[in-house]
């Protein structure tokens, strides 16, 4: 190759490298511009930060004030019904217990519900008692009690659909006892189901050997004993076995 061309190429290479270096390195003027740009940015961001801190402090104060206002408002609300926060908490706990009981009863099978109808009575009385308290006027409690009422109504409906009644006649003429009543064709047609009648009427039959003429007994639906009824029957037979074998608890 011609040495002159080589020299020209080398000179061009040096020129290009010089150009690239000149482009990559910052000039004093560019540095000045960058410093100005970032200083302005820092001042702007500092201003934003100050504003944010001020907003945050204002919000914190507002939050504390809201807490105080809310407490005052609740105290006034309870005072309207002659109560205070402690009484309301106690009432809330009673209401929650009643709600839990209602939910427990709602989950039972129809037969089990009939066997535990006394608990529905108890729940109904509790709900009535809760309505009697002026705290029930507060919407939080009012709404929950209204829902509870619906549940009690539903339980009552289930019980009503499951139970027919039988009025006890005399022992001397009709031979009415739980065993014989249970044996009747239009009752269970099975004397061994007598604990069903006993457990369905625990509120009025304390001792299954003793029923009274004129008593109106609920006859729970079903053709077999529930675990609770079986357990009650076992206890009864165990107790009686000590004295004498029992066949027929009689109407007196």
């Amino acid at each position: 190759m011609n040495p002159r061309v080589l020299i020209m190429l080398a000179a061009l290479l040096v020129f290009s490298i010089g150009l690239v270096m000149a482009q990559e390195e910052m000039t004093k003027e560019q540095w000045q511009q960058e410093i100005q740009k970032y200083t302005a940015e820092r001042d702007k961001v500092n201003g934003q930060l100050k504003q944010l801190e001020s907003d945050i402090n204002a919000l914190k104060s507002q939050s504390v004030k809201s807490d105080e206002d809310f407490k005052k408002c609740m105290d006034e609300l309870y005072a309207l019904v002659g109560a205070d926060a402690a009484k309301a908490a106690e009432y809330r706990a009673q209401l929650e217990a009643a709600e839990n009981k209602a939910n427990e009863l709602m989950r039972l099978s129809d037969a089990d519900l009939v066997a535990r109808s006394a608990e529905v009575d108890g729940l109904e009385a509790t709900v009535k008692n809760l309505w009697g308290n002026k705290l029930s006027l507060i919407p939080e409690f009012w709404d929950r009690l209204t829902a509870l009422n619906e549940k009690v109504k539903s339980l009552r409906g289930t019980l009503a659909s499951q139970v027919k009644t039988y009025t006890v006649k005399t022992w001397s003429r009709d031979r009415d006892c739980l065993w014989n009543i249970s044996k009747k064709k239009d009752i269970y047609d099975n004397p061994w189901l007598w604990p069903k009648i006993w457990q369905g009427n625990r509120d009025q039959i304390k001792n299954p050997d003793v029923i009274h003429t004129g008593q109106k007994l609920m006859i729970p639906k079903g053709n077999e004993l529930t675990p609770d009824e079986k357990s009650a029957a076992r206890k009864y037979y165990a107790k009686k076995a000590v004295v004498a074998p029992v066949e027929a608890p009689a109407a007196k």
Partner: protein
Amino acid sequence: MNTITRKVTRLGVALLFTSSLALVGCTSRPDEAEMKQLNDLKAEVASLQKEIATKEQQKAALDKEVAEKNAKLKKCADDQAVVKQRLANK
């Protein structure tokens, strides 16, 4: 003619060398301390921006908290009105 070509070539090479040297060597550039000043400034701005992001999150959380408390407060005032009405109807 040959002499003229040689002279032009030499002149061209000399011109390229000179201009590249001028480009690299004669431009005014910031020194090390000035570059450090710029980098520190950039780092400060980045750190402040990070702090702003944190504060903005904090502010948003507080905004939500205050809004919830105000809603509770309003409900309490509404409840008072309802209870007064129910007491009057009793």
